[in-house]
């Protein structure tokens, strides 16, 4: 899947990318959370590193998109490609890095026989939603719902 064009190199995720993924996430969120990314990268590496491309410029990782192929979730029996984590270093945004990463994911998903790619986006994250629409995503018939578990039902909570 490695490709080189316009100084951006797209290649599969490796374990040595953790530091840069942590740093990009820290720049985007302001939170340093290496433990989270060590766990997630460990997961994606054992699933399929080819489905998790990173973008390099000048040998430095400047973006990543982690995806996974699964079936059977939420009653969706068809094999689905899920885009789950995505980030581009703010210093390198606006250079079509996200699009290049998505194209790599899409190609990999096609190789897996996936017919539908899905993701979830925070309604407040309009930039991300715009990007996803620009690469071809549309509103889904599915609706994301959530409910907070009452405090008294959580471990250590006050239950009667």
């Amino acid at each position, binding site marked *: 899947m490695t490709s080189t064009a316009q100084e951006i190199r797209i290649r599969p995720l490796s*374990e*040595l990318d953790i*530091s840069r993924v942590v740093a990009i996430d820290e720049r985007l969120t302001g939170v340093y959370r290496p433990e989270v990314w*060590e766990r997630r990268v460990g997961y994606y590496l054992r699933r399929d*590193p080819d489905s998790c491309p990173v973008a390099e410029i000048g040998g430095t990782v400047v973006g990543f998109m982690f995806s996974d192929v699964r079936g059977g979730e939420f009653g969706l029996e068809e094999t689905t490609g899920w885009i789950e984590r995505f980030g581009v270093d703010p210093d390198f945004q606006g250079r079509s890095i996200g699009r290049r990463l998505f194209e790599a994911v899409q190609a990999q998903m096609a190789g897996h026989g996936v017919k539908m790619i899905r993701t979830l986006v925070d309604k407040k994250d309009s930039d991300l939603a715009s990007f996803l629409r620009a690469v071809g995503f549309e509103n889904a018939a599915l609706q994301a719902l959530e409910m907070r578990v009452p405090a008294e039902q959580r471990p250590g909570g006050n239950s009667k």
Partner: protein
Amino acid sequence: MNVEQTVLPKKFHDAVLHWQRHNFPDYGLLPENWQKYFPSDPDFCLCAKMEVGMGDTIEIGDKAGQARMTKPSEMGEEPARHLLAIIRAQASTEFGSIQQHEGTLARAQDDEDRFWVLRVMAEELRHGYQMFHLLVSQDWSGVSGQKAEEMVEEILSMRTGSHVLDAFNLEYDSFVDNVVFAAVIDRVGKYQLAMQRVCAYKPFAQSMPPMLREEAFHLAAGVIPLRRWVQRAAQGNELVTMAAIRRSFNKWTPRGLEMFGHEKGGESNIRFGFKNMKNAEAQSLYYEECRKMVADLNQRYLRARLPKLSPEEAERVAARLLDDRGRHNGISYGDLIELPDLRFFRRKGEPAFTMVGTRGEAFASVDEYVRHLKSHLPEPYLHSRDMKGYVETLRDVEAGRVTVDQAMKKMPKLKRVGGVCPCSNSVRWVVEEESPTIPKNSSDLRPRSNQSTPKSI
């Protein structure tokens, strides 16, 4: 990704399972705990996996542009003999690493780390199985002089000490070795598999992508626990220290570098279309990758000690500490991990038996060098038979009693001299007679001569 799965004929499949019962008794724990540690991952399959859809054209070497070969007889005698040596060496490493891991697996402090390594071991078993598929599914007798059964038996009879490559002949001292081995030695495996993806012999090329995908997790099973350990070490954990990790890197890095073969070699791999890089080029890229791994670990350590540092500042502080051997906010260079010099503690290749320290410093006497090794290698490893043999051989080289070429072949090895079943007591320490068939500077990937006469010592 399209993969065809195949199982070996029953007698070979059973032979692998027999070997597993004796050498990998923890294998059965994996399916019992799979859902706990690897939920939603496909179940482990002990089978050969062949990538479908790879090109039919040779990419490199004398036959570039011609059709990839599918039978050993199509290759010609010399290339076929060469590739057979590579396949046997690869198989030996897969089974060898399981034997090494098994010895200290149960000592892991964290169950997750233990089950990650257990999965690595199971996948190494599959990789060995994959190599057996290559050996038994075609007729190699024209170049091996052996039946498939004999080749399989020979590989399954190898023990820690008699494997083809030195890295697989060292015992682990603790679970630190399980993890550092995965980070350092499996990384060589990644390079070999990636280089062999171009192989002119199609079944071998087809074997590489599925193995490479699994190898990505093996490296993670090394690097991720290391990252957690250095973070805990920074927070005062006295059990797995930076010094213990550094010493383990010093033990394994030289062996990893030697797995690429002699720095001047690798020409024939390219000429025959088996690999796309010469030894020195691949070794150099590998070493740079190891440097990056160590730099990341040091950054993780520094940011745990000094949370206000940015990633860039942490990187700069680590580089400066290692460069000027100074201190920064209570942190000494000695608190960090430093990758040893390329020439440190080498016994194969260009720097073999030169006395070069971890930082590239030269030593004039064996005694002085042994003191240096003592202060930079894991203490239990100093007590090993391997170290004793190394120091004795180094003294012989320095005294002019043996040449470096002779020394490279002289190291004692634990060799099985009887049948395949490890129930029998047929393991002896032996020194093999020097074989006249092994040329000077031969690649490490050449298997030990079968013609040599083992001598018990």
